């Protein structure tokens, strides 16, 4: 297993080795990413009460690259799910309806395995602090709001789209000042506990990242 992982990582790095002698080019410092995917809450009864194990997640992040391999930024997310409400004194009878929403705010640092501006596969990993805001609305009742502190870790792979469409890449740079566009997939784990309940869970996300 370990050998396989090392082999995959080595394959990712091959393009870097191929372009390592390129001339010095202007390198972007800022990036903006948009992503969407599924979030599986770390709540034991979630599937029972909501009928499915996950909920949709949407996010956006802005980051600054100190060097090409290290960036720090802020990420905002939005997750929401509708389901029945519970009547605790009726043996948790499912009745009525409720809406459960999360608004995670993540401050993160990410380390990227990028060694060349034209490297087409970039693995990355990182993590940081999480402030998880929550809101619960049972139909006909007042809204419950709050927040919890926690952390998150994430890792993924970015695919440089410029390699696939150099013409489009040039246009993006000329018209919008975007140096690189990446398509990425990532996994994320979040933990933010309030009253012994972990509001976090595991996310599977995909999106686009623009460097400018």
């Amino acid at each position: 297993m370990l050998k396989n992982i090392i082999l995959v990582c080595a394959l990712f790095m091959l393009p870097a080795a191929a372009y390592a002698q390129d001339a010095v080019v202007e390198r972007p410092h800022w990036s903006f990413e948009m992503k969407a995917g599924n979030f599986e809450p770390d709540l034991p009864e979630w599937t029972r009460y909501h009928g499915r194990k996950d909920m949709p997640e949407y996010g956006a992040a802005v980051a600054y690259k100190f060097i090409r391999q290290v960036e720090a930024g802020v990420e905002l997310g939005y997750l929401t799910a509708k389901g029945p409400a519970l009547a605790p004194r009726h043996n948790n009878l499912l009745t009525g309806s409720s809406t459960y929403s999360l608004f995670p705010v993540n401050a993160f640092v990410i380390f990227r395995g990028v060694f060349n501006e034209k490297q087409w596969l970039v693995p990355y990993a990182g993590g940081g602090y999480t402030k998880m805001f929550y809101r619960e609305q049972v139909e006909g009742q007042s809204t419950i709001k709050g927040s919890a502190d926690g952390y998150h870790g994430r890792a993924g792979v970015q695919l440089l789209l410029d390699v696939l469409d150099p013409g489009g890449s040039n246009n993006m740079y000329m018209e919008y000042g975007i140096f690189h566009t990446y398509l990425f997939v990532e996994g994320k784990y979040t933990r933010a506990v309030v009253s012994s309940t972990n509001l976090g869970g595991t996310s599977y996300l995909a999106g686009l990242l623009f460097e400018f």
Partner: protein
Amino acid sequence: MFLKRYWLLSAAVTAFVIASFAATASAMTIVVAQDTAQCPPTTTTTICYGNLSDAIIKAMEGDSLEIKPGTYSGNFLINKNIASISGSETARTFLSASGSGAALTISGVTASIKIRNLTFISAQTGIVVQSTPTAVIKSNIFETGTTSTAIQFLTSTSSEISNNTFHQNANDILSDTATVTIKNNIFSSQSTIAIGSNVSVANILNNLFFNCPATGPVIQFVTTATDYKGNIQNQDPKFVTVSASDLALRDLHLLTGSPCIDAGNSSDTDVIDSSRADMGAYGGPEADTIPFRIQGVAVSSQLTSTISVTWNANNAYTVRGYRVYYGKTPGVYDGTEATEGASPITLSTGTTVTSATLSGLTVTAAPEAPQLLSTSPRDGGLALNWTAVTGATSYIVHYGLATTGTYSINVGNVTSYTITGLANGPTNTYDVAVSAIAQATYYVAVTAFDSAGSSSGSPGASRESAYSAEAVISTGDAKESPLSNVLSDFPERLVAYPDLPNKGHGCFIATAAYGYYSDPNVQALRQFRDRYLLTNESGRAFVHWYYTHGPAAAAWLDDHPEFKPMVRAALLPAIGISFFLIKTPVTLKLGLALMVFCVLAYVFYLKRFSHRGGAC
């Protein structure tokens, strides 16, 4: 074998040729209806569209467009040889430009085209006829606006404008070069020009001009001129009603005694009575013969089995009477039980009798009991579901603490309802049942008919107006079913999953101390806040102060959970008072207050007595 094939081939070719010929030879009638229920069945010669623009685009040379009642807004353009565009009911078929541009433009149509039985409203120009040699504009109403023009001819000749009613336009007919025949029209209350100066003076016959400004009409009434025959000036045409601000409620039919009756050109006859043509949109050979829709229908119940129906008169001189339709289902007037006769009841007594009585109506028997299917808790309420019962017109929910007899609510004709305003918790277990109510309900509509419509019964078709707006009434005693099965349940505050503390608003410290916002002790404090603090100024001030400082204290308590038992103990008196105030009846509260007062009074008395004793 060969012979058989030959004959088969010949038959197929012949059929194809005949079919192709038929397809190219027959013109289509394209119906435009905003309500698909108005569409006739599609045939090889009839097709229906919901949109006038689509119909115009799809129309081919020689086709006719028939527009069902409704308001069609837009700037419609016809630039191909369509045979006609007509409304199926003049008073209810509106073409509107929404105040901008022309409602209808006829441009470059080389064949004869007829525009009839439409009402043009809210347009800068009602109809523009451009480079179209033969346009016949007949039996329309123009109320385009007091700054607008009804008809504008541009490089078009040899057209006819007959039997139209022009009312409250700025200009009625303007033209650059046209030679048009203008006959049997009513020009009423235009603010500028009835007929523009460039219109040829030939054939202006049997028109009425009324309420013209000092500057108009441009056409002078010359009784001796050959081509100015039969015109009438300055006589009220006597419309039924033009005072309503809603154009849809204006009835431009003619009253008895109108000078326009039988005053049209002697060569024309009325379709409605075969006499000499009337002037205006409802006279002449192609007039709409459907009377104006009845307004103001109302029903009232006199006795348990009798209802009275009243309506506004339709005073058009052609109307001969009314029909009263009734039934027990909305829109279905199939009643047979009235002593006065089965629906419709025909009143051929002229237009002045505007009421009718329906007696001997069925009084409904009690319905069966519904079945109460479920109750489910809500915060301060119970949600109920029950089965529908045949014949029920409404349902009554009965409930109370350990009895169904305390409260009852008529909830209408529904099969679910949520009782609100209840106290939460198992100590407040309510018995709930439902009963059904049945009462005879009648739906009534009225129509008007003319002399040829007295024996038919086809509302909205020729000679009888469309149904009026429906009136509804319940009559007879309401009959109640036995009670349904009884279910018992108690309300409670629901929680979402996961059950999280409310750190936004609410009982911050108590929530932190007890761990959950839905904890009964926290809920008691919340209810105390809602009932006793938020209902007065000082209480609200305290809540505001607490909302400002409470979250910080709660956060500190979350960070120091070892203090939570202490805080819970400190909160006990407040929670106890809250439980007492929200869970006990008023009498018990007053009794306790009286007892406290007596104790205090006794203590005060003792202290005073002992003080005096000391002094002696």
